[in-house]
C-alpha cells in the first residue's frame, strides 16, 4: 500500500509538471486549438480550478493501484512496460469515455482526439515511472 502511495505521489508530481506545463505551452503556441473551449460546457467561474489541477494526482493514484495489481503482465524494459501499460489503460478506460463524451456533448472530434492523446501520454509516462519505482 505504501509503495502504491509513494509511486502515485511521485508520478503525480511528474505528471503535474509535464501535463500543465505542456498545456500552458500548447495554449501559448497553438492558440487556435483552444478556441473551442470558449463554450458554456466548460466551467468558467474558476471555482473548480483546484479540482482541475488535482487531476494529475487523481489519475496517478488510480494508475498506481492498477499497476500494482497487474504489473506482472507487463514484461520487458521500463519503456516497453510503460508503453504497453499506457495503451492498455487507453483502450480500456479512455476510448469508451471519449466515445460517450463525443456522442453526448457538443464537442469537436479534434477536442476528443486531443483528450485521448493527452490521457495516453499521461498513462505512458506514469507507466514508465511505475516500472522504475515499483517494478
Amino acid at each position, binding site marked *: 500500500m505504501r509503495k502504491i502511495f509513494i509511486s502515485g505521489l511521485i508520478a503525480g508530481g511528474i505528471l503535474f509538471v509535464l501535463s*500543465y506545463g505542456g*498545456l*500552458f505551452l500548447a*495554449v501559448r503556441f497553438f*492558440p*487556435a486549438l*483552444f*478556441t*473551442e*473551449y*470558449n*463554450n*458554456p*460546457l*466548460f*466551467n*468558467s*467561474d*474558476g471555482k473548480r*480550478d483546484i479540482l*482541475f*489541477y488535482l487531476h494529475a494526482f487523481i489519475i496517478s493514484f488510480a494508475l498506481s493501484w492498477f499497476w500494482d495489481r497487474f504489473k506482472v503482465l507487463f514484461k520487458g524494459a521500463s519503456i516497453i512496460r510503460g508503453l504497453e501499460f499506457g495503451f492498455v489503460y487507453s483502450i480500456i478506460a479512455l476510448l469508451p469515455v471519449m466515445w460517450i463524451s463525443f456522442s453526448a456533448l*457538443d464537442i469537436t472530434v479534434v477536442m476528443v482526439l486531443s483528450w485521448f492523446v493527452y490521457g495516453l501520454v499521461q498513462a505512458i509516462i506514469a507507466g514508465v515511472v511505475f516500472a522504475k519505482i515499483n517494478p
Partner: protein
Amino acid sequence: MLYKNIFWIYLLFLLLTSFVLPSNCPGLTERKKWVISENSSLCVNGSTNVNKFSCEILAYGRTDTLTVNKSDKEIVLSGSIGINIQSFDCHNSMMTRDLRKTLKEKQFPMLHIIFLSLNRLPDLIPQPEPITGMVDIEIAGVRQHFEVKYKISIDDQRVVHLLGSRDINFSDFNLIPPRKLGGMIQTKDKLSVDFHLKMKTIN
C-alpha cells in the same frame, strides 16, 4: 364700472398670456425627437488569450425614441435602448452561448443604454461630427455612468447616423470574465462596445 371692466380685461390678458412663452426667452428649451430605426446595430468586441471575438446585434428590432432638449444650461438627451441579450451573435454558436451565460442572460435578459446628455447640439451635416455625451449602461442589473464618444451625421435621406463607441470592463458590472481549463484560457476584462443608431427626426 370703467375700473371694473379694466380689471376684468387685465385679468383676462394675464390668463391668456401666462401660459405662452416667447421663443427668444433665455432658459427655454428647443426640442427634437429622433426615432431609432429597426436596422440600428450594436457590436461588442473582446478577446481571450487564444482568440478575438466580435458579437453583434445587426438589427435592433424596436423603434424607440430619443429626445434632445436644448436649454441654456445643458443639452439633455433622453431616451434609452433596450437590447435583448438573446439577440447577440458571435458568429460561433459556442462563443454566443458563452457570452450570454457571462452576461447572466437568464436573470437579466436585457441590456440597457440610457442616454443622458450631449456636450453640444450637433449641426447635423453630412460629414461625421465628433461630439460626446453621457450615458448609463445597465448590464446584469448593474448600472454604470460613462462618457461616450459619438460621431453624428445626416445622409441624403435625412437619416441621422449616431455612431457611439466606448470601452467597458466586465468588472464594471460585477461580471467575471470567463476562464477555462483552470485559467489557462482567459477572457480579457476589456470589451469595446460600438453602436450605430439610424434615426429620423419626427418634429
